């Protein structure tokens, strides 16, 4: 990747593991020798609201927040949340998106529609686009919570950081009984990008 600071915006819905994923990235890139900063907002209701996490790494990082329009990678755990933050992406930025939809309340109430064809809409403007079946794969493996590890697997394909470091860091924050499942989830995520 480029020499300066790299900016990753992780976006999703409360309860999807957005913060855990960006925590893991922070650990991995610190261990790989970078300065790192990350920032997010949580509070209010524990589930269901918008969650974004700014993650930055480089030689020296000042602001924990990414300047609008300078996101290098938009890492979206949900389609609508991917679209919501798309204006923060650089013109030639990369998008890694979980193929998953979570209805916001206004859609549940039938007052607004969930936007149709989000992946196609985004792909029309941003070519560097990867749709990952994170939630689907995690559900097949029997635990929806592993979706964020599938997505991290996909993310890991874009950096020259050893797979071992990713896995060691991920398993380090998870209880031993789910290690096997998450090893598989991570590997499945990596395959998603090779296929693309």
């Amino acid at each position, binding site marked *: 990747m480029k020499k300066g600071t790299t900016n990753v915006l992780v976006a999703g819905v409360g309860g999807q593991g957005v913060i855990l994923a960006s925590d893991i990235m922070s650990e991995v890139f610190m261990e790989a020798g970078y300065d790192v900063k990350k920032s997010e*907002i949580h*509070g209010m209701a524990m589930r269901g609201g918008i969650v974004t996490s700014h993650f930055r790494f480089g030689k020296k990082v000042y602001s*924990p927040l990414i300047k609008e329009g300078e996101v290098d990678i938009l890492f979206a755990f949900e389609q609508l949340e991917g679209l919501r933050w798309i204006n923060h992406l650089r013109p030639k930025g990369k998008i890694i998106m979980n193929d998953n939809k979570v209805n916001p309340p206004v859609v549940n109430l039938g007052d607004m529609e969930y936007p149709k064809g989000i992946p196609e809409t985004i792909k029309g403007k941003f070519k560097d686009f990867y749709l990952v079946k994170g939630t689907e794969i995690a559900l097949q493996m029997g635990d929806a919570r592993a979706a964020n590890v599938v997505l991290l697997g996909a993310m890991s394909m874009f950096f020259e950081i050893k797979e071992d470091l990713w896995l060691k860091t991920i398993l380090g924050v998870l209880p031993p009984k789910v290690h096997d499942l998450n090893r598989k989830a991570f590997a499945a995520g990596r395959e998603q990008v090779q296929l693309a």
Partner: protein
Amino acid sequence: MKKVMTGNEAIARGAFEAGVKVAAAYPGTPSTEIMETLGKEYKEIYAEWSPNEKVALEVAIGASLAGARAMSSMKHVGVNVAADPLMTLSYVGVNGGLVLVSCDDPELYSSQNEQDNRHYARFAKIPMFEPSDSQEAKDFTKLGFEVSEKFDTPVMLRGVTRISHSKGIVELKDPVLPPVALEVRKQTAKYTMLPAYARVKHGVVEERLLKLKEFAETFPGNRMELNDRDIGIITAGISYQYAKEVFPKVSYLKLGMVWPLPRNLIAEFFKKVKKVIVIEELDPFLEENIKVMGFKPKGGKNLFSLLGEYNPLIVEKGMLGKKFKPPEPVFKDPLPPRPPNLCPGCPHRGIFYMLKKLKLVATGDIGCYTLAAYPPLASLDTCICMGASIGQAHGMAKAMGDAGRGKFVGVIGDSTFLHGGIAPLMNIAYNKSYTTIILLDNRTTGMTGSQEHPGTGYTIRGEKTHKIDFVELGKVLGIENIREVNPWNLEEAEKTIREEIEKDSPSLIITKGPCILLKREFKKYNKPLVIDSTKCIGCKSCVNLGCPAISFQKVEGEMAVTKDGKKRKGISYIEPTLCPGCHLCYQVCKFEAIQSQEERPVLGFDTM
């Protein structure tokens, strides 16, 4: 050793490295994780959740007077609660070092106001440090204890949400042994603020402030970074990082100590650069105090907003003015918003559904249930501060007299009630109100992520302890009518509320439903409910509960007619992965279109 830490974790680490012995707090976003970290990771330190911030600070004061280093942490509005002891603590000073951490919340991510707590340092005439990242959060916390002891003063450490909840790399050190011996000594003139002693102490405080001004001149956290001399930015805290990101080549006077300010250093900076701009979130605290010294910055709040949180783009816009070019948005269509919501299965939902049905005005309080102000429930009508619901309901009753009976209630959570609700509830009985208060006892401090309190029966470290009995408490305060209800049973809730609001003596209705996320309180969750699509007529009764698990899906063609030939625009759908089976929707459906998967329908849960 290096570690990636949030600002809050770094403050906790700083307390540990400084040899803190006692730490007390009340949870409040964005400060909560400071005490959580102390509770979980540093067993050497005595940590507690106090019932409120005033008590927390008083606990820290006592520990300090006994010679221990002590810390108290709270959100910005928590300092309002603790302001009473704080103002006089300034006179008393300390024995062991004392640091009060105030976590402000620019942008009101999870707060009821956007107050700038730097004013408290000036108001109380005490020093304040403001870190700009996690490393400084740790360093300044440690330094706070040294300065506290050296100058015999409490020290405030002020952070903002973006410091508390951002992570950065922190260099860890070993803990030090504090210099002061533990002992409880009589020092009446120092510790007992009778007028005669306090008068003397006021003079001591003013002298101390002069010494602190001298200290600020040499404090290494106040530093000049001289580059291009055309522009010099005076800034502190998180704003420094935003400015440095966007304008790396200009000169900086970066203040780590925001009160009192270093006059000579500021004068020197004004001499060295051509044009000075002050960048700070919220109030023009630095700007005004610099102007009072006689300096004339070219920019400050004339360029930057008084409102909200800054970010690199806002700082760039303020600095460049008309030359600023905003990034061109790629997509401009409005998107469905996603406000925070009460969880599926939340015990508060049924009560607010009922308040809406009964068309009651509800004076409200601070907690997850404040979200019931949003549609579709839209049944919480006031929110001011912790415990305010009860006094307001009483005030309404006294203003309206008999005409108000049956028209309103007060609602308050368990943690909030123990924080600030006991005195106002006592007042209702004492001053003969007819007011009905609904105590939403979900057995935790929910909004901040589930912390223990005196009503849960556990300490911060999970040890069993005395558990408040709300019924008994209500009785001793003099409340005549006390009822307990299952908040997932709508019929029971409706009957109880209807009966109590008509009475001419005060009532306390206590809901017996734990927070749905509090696993230890549930023997099991229920099976998800299922919509019978042949019976659903699309009336939206269940949808209007505002449960995230229930959605309304439009139907066309054959699907637009029920089995009985009734027309429908859509049908409800229950997402099985989200539904814990509370059965509220089952109760509101008049068409038997929602089916229980339990052997027989249950209203709520089998709880501990």
